[in-house]
Every structure is written in C-alpha cells, then in structure tokens.
C-alpha cells in the first residue's frame, strides 16, 4: 500500500501552517517526521486522517484520493495511534483493542467472536497476551502505548500513523516501543511517526522527513538528512553528531548538545 501526499497546504484562518508538503510512504517503510514544536506535524496528521478536510493538494492512497473515502473505508487503510492517554472510563485491555474493530461491521453491529480472537492475537504478537483482562487505565505509559498499537493492528489497516509514540515514556519503554514498531515495519506495515529525538531517527527509521516552517526541508536517509547544520536550524541548538562506527551500523549517530553547562562537581 502506498500513501502519497501531494502539494498539501493548510491554513488555520489566515495563518499558513502547511505549505505544499509532498512525500510518500510505502508498506515496509518506517518514516520519522522531525520538526520543532508547532511546525505543523499534528496538522499534517489530521489532514492524513481526514480529521481536517479543508486542505488544498491531495492525499492519495493507492491511487484513490482520501477525500472520497468514508470514515470506515479510511480506517481500514490508515490507523492512528495517539499518545498513550488515560480514558475517562475503566475499560479492560481487550475492550480497548477490540475498539479497533469499530469499522469492521455495520453501524449497529457488535464485534464478533473472530474479532475477539484477532484482537487477542495482536496482543500476543506484542507480548501482552496475559494482559487482556487488566484494567487499561491502570497500566503504565509504555504498556498503554503497546495496547494502542495492538488496537491499530486490530483495525487491519496497512498504514500506521503515530503521534510521538515515545513521548512521556521512560528510557526503557522508549526502546521497547520503538523496537516493536520496527518489527511492524518489517512485517510490511508502513509507519509514519513523529518524534523529537534525532537519535530515534538514526536508530530506527528507514527514512526521515524534516518539516520546517510548514515545508519539507529535507527527505531521505537519516544520516544524509540529519546533519549538524540541519539540527541546529531545526532546534536552535548546536549539536555534535558522533558516528557509532563498530556498533551494528555505521549510519548510527549519537547526538550530543554543545556548549552545555556541566555542574562544577561533575568535572
């Protein structure tokens, strides 16, 4: 499946947020979207998910414009994974995953036994088979994020859009969640995720799209796109990139800020 974003522009009232953004994503790719706060990443996601429809340009799924799709049709192709949140009500993990089946049947239909089996299988694939009966609202942030990923898989969509899936997670959970996401792209899912950590792009993405001032500033392999100059331009902070030669892949970089004030006692 191929997602094609063509000359996408969007304005809130008179403020232009996105200016002819174009890039594409195919199954098996993991594309990281990098850009400073307020650059229009969330707006871009909302356009892709058809939550905002008054954009110009086009978003095309395997040759079909998403404008012509109903909610149900779109949900079968693109799944959205929000940041892990606490819902108002106490649902079990299985209930939450099952909600991925909301677009599978008719308007008044309930999920069926096969949807339950499929949902349980998705939990199992993420190593959470024994959590099905737990209260979702009492899980840790990392576990919740995995449940939401399982829900997206239960949706049977081929393209996964994730809004900062590692935000608010501790270091270990960030690594675990990113590893699971990489596993998904290996299984053939096309993944588009936003992140604020350049190292995530180096370690896990197959491609990186850099968004600045509502435009695509750069699009390509992370080691080509994310230079010290680009990162300074993006975040206004000088950084040094250290190639991690000898560690798995020469494309890996560690990103360290320059000119930081180290406390006296640490020197």
């Amino acid at each position, binding site marked *: 499946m191929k997602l094609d974003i063509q000359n996408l522009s969007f304005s809130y009232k008179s403020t232009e947020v996105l200016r002819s953004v174009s890039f594409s994503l195919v199954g098996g790719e993991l594309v990281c979207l990098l850009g400073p706060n307020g650059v229009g990443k969330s707006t871009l996601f*909302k356009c892709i*998910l*058809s*939550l905002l429809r008054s954009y110009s340009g086009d978003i095309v799924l395997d040759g079909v414009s998403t404008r012509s799709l*109903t*909610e*149900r049709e*779109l*949900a*079968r192709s*693109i*799944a*959205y994974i*929000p940041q892990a949140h606490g*819902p*108002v*009500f*106490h*649902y*079990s993990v*299985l*209930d939450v995953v099952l*909600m*991925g089946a*909301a*677009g*599978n049947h008719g*308007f*008044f*239909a*309930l*999920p*069926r*036994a096969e949807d*339950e089996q499929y949902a349980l299988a998705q939990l199992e694939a993420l190593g959470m088979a024994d959590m099905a009966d737990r209260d979702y*609202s009492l899980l840790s942030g990392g576990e919740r994020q995995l449940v939401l990923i399982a*829900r997206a898989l239960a*949706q049977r969509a081929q393209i996964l859009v994730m809004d900062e899936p590692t935000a608010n997670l501790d270091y270990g959970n960030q690594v675990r969640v990113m590893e699971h996401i990489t596993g998904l792209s290996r299984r053939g899912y096309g993944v588009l995720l936003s992140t604020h950590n350049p190292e995530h792009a180096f370690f896990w993405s197959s491609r990186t799209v850099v968004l600045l001032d509502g435009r695509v500033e750069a699009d390509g392999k992370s080691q080509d796109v994310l230079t010290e100059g680009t990162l300074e331009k993006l975040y206004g902070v000088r950084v040094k990139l250290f190639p991690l030669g000898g560690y798995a892949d020469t494309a890996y970089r560690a990103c360290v800020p320059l000119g930081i004030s180290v406390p006296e006692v640490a020197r």
Partner: protein
Amino acid sequence: MSIYTKRFISLLVPLTAFFVVLFIVSCALGRYPISPLEVARLLFIAPFTPVAGAPVSQGAIVLLQVRLPRIAAAALIGAGLSASGAAYQGLFRNPLVSPDVLGVSAGAGFGAALGIFFSLGALGITLLSFGLGLVTALAVGLLARRVGNDSTLALVLSGIMVGSLLSSALSFLKLVADPSNVLPAITYWLMGSLSSIKQGDTLFVLPLIVGALVLLYLLRWRINVLTLGDEEARSLGTAVGLSRVLVIVAATLATAASVSVSGMIGWVGLVIPHFARMVGGSDYRYLIPLSMVMGASYLLLVDDLARLLTTAEIPIGILTSFVGVPFFLYLIRRGRIA
C-alpha cells in the same frame, strides 16, 4: 461462544430474573390483596386463553387498570432515566453528568407547570411537558453550535444556562399561581410522583421510551467508541456526527417522556449507571442493558416503598433523593467514582 456473549449472559440473566420476580411481587402488593400466583396467571396466561362471557374478577380490574399501568410506568421510567444517564455520561465523557444536562428536565418541568397553571388536564399537561422538554433540548443544541469550539463544554454550558432560565420562569409561574389549589399541584408534581399515572399516560410513554431504549441498546458499542473522543472515534472508522445525534435524540426522548408523566425524579440517572458499572464494568455493551434492568428494578422497588410505607403516599422523587444521595456519597468515599 464469544467472551462477550458469555459475560453478557452471566450478568444479565440473574438480574433480569430478579426484575421479573420483583415486577410480579409488586403487582401483588397493595391495599387489595392479590396473590403472586394470581398475578402471574392474569398477566401471562389469561390474555392468551380468553373465555367468552366469563365475568371479569375484581382482582383483574384492580391489577390491569390501576396497578399495572403504574408499575409498568415505574419500570419504564427507571429504565429510561438510567439508560439515558449512562448514555449522556459516555457522550460527554464525564461520569458525573445526569439526564438533566441538556435542560430537558427543566423544560419538561416548566411545561408541566404551565399545563397545570392553565388547567389543561392530564393529557394536555403530559403533552406540553414532553413538547417543551424536547424543544429545550433542541434549543440548547442549537445554542451550543453558536457558542464555541469545544462542543462538549458548549453543550453543557448552554444546558446550564437554559436550565436556570427555565427554573426562573418556573419560579415566576409559582409566584403568580393560585396558592389554594394550583400552587400545591405544581409543587407536588415537581416532587415527582407516580401516584397519578393513568393507563393513558403509560400507553403514551410506552412506545416513546421503548423506542428510545431499543435505539440506545443498538448503539451501545458505538457509545464505547465515542468515549475515546471525536478524533479517535473517527480515526477508528465511526461516523461520529451521526452517532452523537442518534444517542442524544434517544436519551433526550427517554428523559422527556419520563419527566412528562412522572415529574422530577432525581438521581436515578446518575446513581444507577454507577451502580451498574460496579457490577459489570464500564463497557457500554453491558452497561446499557444493565442500567436498564437495574434502573427498572430500582424505581419499582422505591415506588413500592412510596406506595406502601405510609397511608399517605410519599412522592417518589423525595425517596430517590433519600436513597440516591447517601449512596452516591458512599461511592465517592469508596473511591469508586474515578
């Protein structure tokens, strides 16, 4: 069998059985003694085996014309208020919301008071009350669309505004009402009571409440998805606008129909859904039917108390508050309301 079906049966079969027994026992209770067996025979066997020319017993008249309309109304109103309370809570993503949020009760209450003020008679009062209840909800809905971006907040705020406007109008009506007969009638009606319910009232609300309940029952899985918020629900493939409108229409219909015949019966729509959550969890696939069965049983039980506790009837609205408020405080203390 799916996990859902198993759980559904294990939760609902015992509670429904309890409700049926309670219904029959309630029919047997009262000043004129009828045995529960006789009630069961009159309700479930006699209608299907008519004997031509057989004299109608006095028990049958008391049961079918006096007791049954009231008991059926109590069950319907209990189920209607509870299920709409649960639905509103899901829709507004707030477990402290009750069926009065959209100003429905205030509108229906004002309508009834107006009907009593102009001495319109029972049917006129019911119709005016029902009509004004719906019109108020509609007005609140339209007002909210013009207020702001956050649809939920706008709706709740508009509901509070219109509700307080209507209660001022109601106070004015009470001020100018004849204090010797009209004022007491309005006041008594506002306390909420099932004592004056006639066969005609029950037949009027029956299709409205049953229709609304069927719609809520069919939509229960959609309500689950709606509690995630509009954007997530849409990205999961739900037609959010249509679902919201249908849930609001069904819940408002049930509330307006209930209030129009019984007056203000408070707390049922808030307390019962919480009680149902304690029994069966938050999943609306169970919560909606559980709220219906438990709400019907609860109001039936409280109405039995209202009828039988003292020789002069206690308005049921007073009793539901006496039971509901302490129970709610207990829930808060136990931390069962998140």
